């Protein structure tokens, strides 16, 4: 701890850093930040910075609203030019992720980082380390004006080679900036829908990855806005084309050994791996309100757009909720599962904590894995699905909240504070939505009724 602190202070001094941004995340996954000067940094590292949490979603409590933001010195990073600096100044700016603490120094129950940390610690107590690698999809639009239909920048489609087109240029600059920040990108490509792009990250431990996702969202948006473009992680911004998902690959290691891998198995998948998948599937409906937390998230989870709608798994079937990619020959360490429901507008800290908890529960209780979904699930009738014992994912935020509310696993993993606040906040969102008369209804009903 001492030398990390020393490293941060020394670097700030040597590099002439003028401002340090303290980053943290509210319960809904919205990035929050305030800046401090180098003079305040030493105290912030030792004692944390006090601020009024009542204005932050999910931080408010009845009696006491002050909390502490305590920088995690491991995450200290000087930001590349242009990131985190609206005024375009060239002086050095750094960021550091914070844990939120109560004034007495104990972890604050509303802090999403704390929720994930606690879940990871439970896994570590059993010898496991949990890794995540997301595929983040998003759109570029001409502007972010909420009153208009969003305008895509291009008409490109999957893997299309578009010459000198603005959005590909933006994606390229984003990737380079991320690499400069030590965030290796596995692939970046144009996706199916117009102006839709995807950035796949190389795996890291789940806590680092959740921090990284927050960083990526910011970098994508800022680089777009420098060029007067608006980048959006909204799950389904355009009807009639694919939405944006955040398929995430997960693996579990015990030391150097991949827990999901078994050379003796035909598909290289271990028994523990099967139990883990069974656990995630068993609890999938309960955690969907978190992996897909907006009214709009459920406009993505519909048939016909490669998004999962049934609780199912398969080795190579992209309609399934969990896909188990076949590990490359001789690389058993790459065995992993791909969870395909989350969208890039979720809170990654909470989502990862829940997937891990569900999987571990499956391993603990030895849940039996249902048979692999062999056919294209989208083509089956409801009767056929029922006879195969395949359950649907929740169809709306209201459905998802109802299932989540009864989940012991979710309550235990999120903790009472986050669990209660989340349900209350999301119910209010659903209530507000049901009161709205939408353009769809006007165009559909007004002319004829």
């Amino acid at each position: 701890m001492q030398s990390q602190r020393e490293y941060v202070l020394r670097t700030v001094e040597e590099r002439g850093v003028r401002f340090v941004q303290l980053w943290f995340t509210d319960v809904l996954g919205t990035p929050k930040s305030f800046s401090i000067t180098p003079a305040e940094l030493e105290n912030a590292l030792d004692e944390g910075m006090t601020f009024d949490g009542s204005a932050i979603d999910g931080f408010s409590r009845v009696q006491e609203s002050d909390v502490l933001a305590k920088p995690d010195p491991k995450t200290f990073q000087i930001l590349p030019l242009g990131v985190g600096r609206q005024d375009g100044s060239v002086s050095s700016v750094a960021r550091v992720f914070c844990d939120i603490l109560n004034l007495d120094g104990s972890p604050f129950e509303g802090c999403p980082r704390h929720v994930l940390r606690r879940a990871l610690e439970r896994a570590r107590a059993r010898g496991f380390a949990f890794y995540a690698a997301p595929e983040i999809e998003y759109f570029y639009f001409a502007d972010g004006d909420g009153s208009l239909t969003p305008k895509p920048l291009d008409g490109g489609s999957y893997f299309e080679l578009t010459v000198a087109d603005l959005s590909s240029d933006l994606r390229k600059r984003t990737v380079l900036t991320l690499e400069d920040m030590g965030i290796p990108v596995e692939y970046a490509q144009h996706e199916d829908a117009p102006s839709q792009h995807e950035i796949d990250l190389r795996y890291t431990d789940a806590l680092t990855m959740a921090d990284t996702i927050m960083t990526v969202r910011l970098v994508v948006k800022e680089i777009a806005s420098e060029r007067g473009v608006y980048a959006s992680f909204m799950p389904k911004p355009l009807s009639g084309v694919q939405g944006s998902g955040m398929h995430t690959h997960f693996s579990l290691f015990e030391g150097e050994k991949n827990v999901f891998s078994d050379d003796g198995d035909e598909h290289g998948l271990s028994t523990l791996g099967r139990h883990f998948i069974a656990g995630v599937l068993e609890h999938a409906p309960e955690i969907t309100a978190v992996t897909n937390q907006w009214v709009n998230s459920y406009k993505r989870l519909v048939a016909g757009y490669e998004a999962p709608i049934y609780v199912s798994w398969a080795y190579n079937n992209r309609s399934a909720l969990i896909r188990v990619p076949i590990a490359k020959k001789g690389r058993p360490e790459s065995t992993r599962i791909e969870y395909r429901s989350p969208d890039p507008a979720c809170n990654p800290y909470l989502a990862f904590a829940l997937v891990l908890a569900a999987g571990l529960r499956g391993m603990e209780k030895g849940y039996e894995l249902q048979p692999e979904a062999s056919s294209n699930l989208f083509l089956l009738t409801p009767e056929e699905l029922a006879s195969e014992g395949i359950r649907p994912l929740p169809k709306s935020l209201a459905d998802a909240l109802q299932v989540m509310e009864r989940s012991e696993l979710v309550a235990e993993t999120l903790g009472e504070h986050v669990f209660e606040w989340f349900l209350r906040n999301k119910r209010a969102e659903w209530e507000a939505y049901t009161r709205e008369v939408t353009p769809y209804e006007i165009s559909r009903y007004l002319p004829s009724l």
Partner: protein
Amino acid sequence: MEPLAVFPDPPSRWLSRALASAGYPYEPVAGAAEVERCEPAEGWAGAVVEMGTDGAGISLCRALRKREEQVSPVLVAVTDDQLAELDFDEGLFDDFVLVGSAALEVEARLAQLFRRLRRGTEHEIIQYGPLALNLATYQAALDGRPLDLTYMEYELLRFLAAHPGKVFTREALLQRVWGYEYFGGARTVDVHVRRLRAKLGEEHAHLIETVRSVGYRFGSVRWLPEGRVSDWQS
């Protein structure tokens, strides 16, 4: 003169005799906590640590290095069969002496260390081709351009660059660099190597080489001394 911190408490008979005959004042300490508690107002003059076999010795060395007020010099006493392991822990002490060495040798080594460290106030620099690490300021530069590293990236690069040409397993790196205080497990090493390579950029990413099914190696063994950097580059 301020006393030396001596570990363990009590030190072996061999060591207490050697120190007594060398005439240095010393204070036995049982661990890192006592180093803090019993520290004289002017700070310790240095430390002598008997490595022992249970790992407590090397943990103490690590704790000494992590302190804000560094204790130096640190002299470690090891047995014959511990000599091979010393390479790995190089950064954690300033010199070593074999358990059982003559009292005069212990005295000479301490005297030598005091002389060297009093005088040597220049910053220590590790240089390898285009890469330079300033250990005093924690700054790394590539072709003179500063690298923006996180703490663990810096620590990993420093460790690797201090042992060019040597292959380390993930476990070894995890133990030497992280000290196991981390969530990630052994895969963490891969993650950080990738992050470092991304920051080194395509041109220099190869400085850290993957040695298949073993681990990682930084640079090559046949690295030439500093004066010949330009030869090597051409």
